[in-house]
């Protein structure tokens, strides 16, 4: 998902995305200053190095027989561990290093990349994670919230990327492309959500104190699991369906989609995750009404991610401190 140079070539779009990125980063840094202790920069720097290294772990996948591999994006993960502002700053530093040292992601697209992965990935992802975590409560809330947040962060980043492309003079099939991007990334996002969920589960069972909690108060006693679960699911579904109308126009551009589908195929460079699943999502009878198909993909994806989250939450090792929710254990255990 690192946009290289010259893919977005309209100077106005470059300036606009850079301005949004600078503004967002400035705001994140100013919010961070409120919670800044001398430890913050050390932890953020080392977490950034950790995320940078973690992106080198390749997950083996099989895409129609050809071995492909995907890797973690990490926007949601760093937000879960450092909070939204810290997470966004971590992503910003990772992107800057990747751009300036490795040439990965263009210098002129740095702003767009930060908007897609930092602002959308960390901050919007966190905005979805936090209410879910509060609603469900305990380590279960952290896990499910992180997975749903990770899924949406991929979906929203894909939508923003489409918007940026459309803004640089490619409005012709904006709604088509958006529909396809949402469909494909609904599947890719499941990969990111599963990776994020498994990593969060590991951290929860080893060092639950590393999960960022804004209130630092003991986690509220979960109300009724069934009620709150349904409420959280409702929020997630509402967001998914909110996205769908964007895809519902121009239902007859299937030829163009052929070309676009190739384009989408590539843009997921980072995470060609569970692509074989798409045929299931885009139920054949529905392909002509991409709006419905997209909404269906949104619902199915949300349900799948939610279900996976519940399964994972059920397997958190019993008897570990994690069972009682995040709390401080032996800080000097290192």
């Amino acid at each position, binding site marked *: 998902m690192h946009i290289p140079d010259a893919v977005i070539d309209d100077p106005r779009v470059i300036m606009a995305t850079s301005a949004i990125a600078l503004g967002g980063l400035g705001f994140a840094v100013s919010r961070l200053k409120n919670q800044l202790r001398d430890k913050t920069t*050390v932890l953020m720097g080392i977490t950034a190095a950790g995320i940078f290294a973690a992106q080198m772990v390749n997950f083996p996948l099989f895409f129609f027989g050809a071995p492909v591999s995907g890797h973690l994006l990490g926007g949601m993960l760093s937000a879960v561990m450092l909070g939204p502002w810290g997470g966004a700053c971590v992503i910003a530093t990772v992107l800057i290093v990747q751009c300036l040292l490795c040439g990965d992601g263009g210098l002129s697209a740095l702003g767009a990349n930060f908007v897609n992965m930092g602002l959308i990935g960390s901050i919007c992802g966190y905005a979805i994670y936090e209410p879910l975590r509060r609603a469900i409560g305990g380590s279960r809330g952290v896990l499910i919230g992180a997975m749903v947040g990770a899924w949406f962060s991929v979906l929203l980043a894909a939508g923003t990327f489409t918007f940026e492309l459309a803004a640089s003079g490619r409005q012709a099939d904006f709604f088509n492309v958006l529909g396809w991007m949402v469909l494909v990334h609904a599947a890719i996002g499941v990969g990111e959500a599963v990776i994020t969920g498994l990593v969060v589960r590991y951290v929860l069972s080893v060092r639950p104190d590393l999960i960022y909690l804004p209130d630092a108060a003991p986690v509220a006693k979960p109300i009724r699991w069934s009620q709150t679960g349904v409420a959280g699911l409702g929020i997630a579904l509402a967001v998914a369906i909110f996205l769908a109308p964007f895809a519902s126009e121009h239902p007859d551009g299937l030829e163009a989609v052929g070309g676009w589908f190739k384009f989408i195929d590539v843009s997921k460079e980072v995470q060609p995750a569970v692509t074989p699943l798409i045929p299931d999502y885009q139920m054949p009878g529905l392909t002509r009404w991409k709006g419905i198909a997209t909404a269906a993909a949104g619902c199915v994806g949300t349900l799948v991610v939610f279900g996976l989250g519940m399964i994972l939450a059920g397997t958190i090792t019993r008897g570990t401190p994690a069972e009682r929710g995040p709390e401080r254990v032996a800080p000097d255990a290192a």
Partner: protein
Amino acid sequence: MRLEALDRHAYHNGPLHRADVRIKLCATLAFVIAVVATPVGLWRPLAIEGLLLAFFVGLARIDPALLARRWLGFLLLVAFLGATVAQSHPARTQLGWAVVWLSILAKNSLAFVAVLTLAGTTPFPKLLDGLRRLGMPAVLVSTLHFMNRYTHVLTSELARMTQARRSRTFKRSGRLDWGLLTGLIGNLLVRSFERGERVHAAMLARGWDGTIRTLDGEAEAS
């Protein structure tokens, strides 16, 4: 790590190495924007920009084979992405798909080599010093400093952990062993956090006051 050759070259001495970092940063940014904004299908400006870049690469005495290897590594990906983006480019109807595709490739290559030239003539700490003096918030600069110091440590830690895992597990390769791999990532993150806590304690013990000092830069508050 694959960056090492370029990284080492950044510590050589030459006219570009001695130039002020801020000038180099701004010039690279201006060059990249100029290249990217060059309209599709205009080859003469691109050729001039290419010559200009070649002159600076020569001045920096970076091994062209090194640049070419890095460039080829990314070329395939950009070619693929460019081919599909060119499909919907506004200029496609007049110029044809191939021209649009080739000019996206050319523009991307020039920008890529320009950024690598900057990286090959400026050690990263100096680059950060330049960014700070250009007004980047101190919090971000210190974070970048720490990240730069520990990237290599954590990358080699990851390599050691991967080796340890592979010597202890006997799974066929290609199977979906996501559980193992995410355990690896989780462990890496927990270890990096714990290392961060230890480093912080050690720095406090040495009298750290929140200011990062480098040998050739001014002090910076965080």
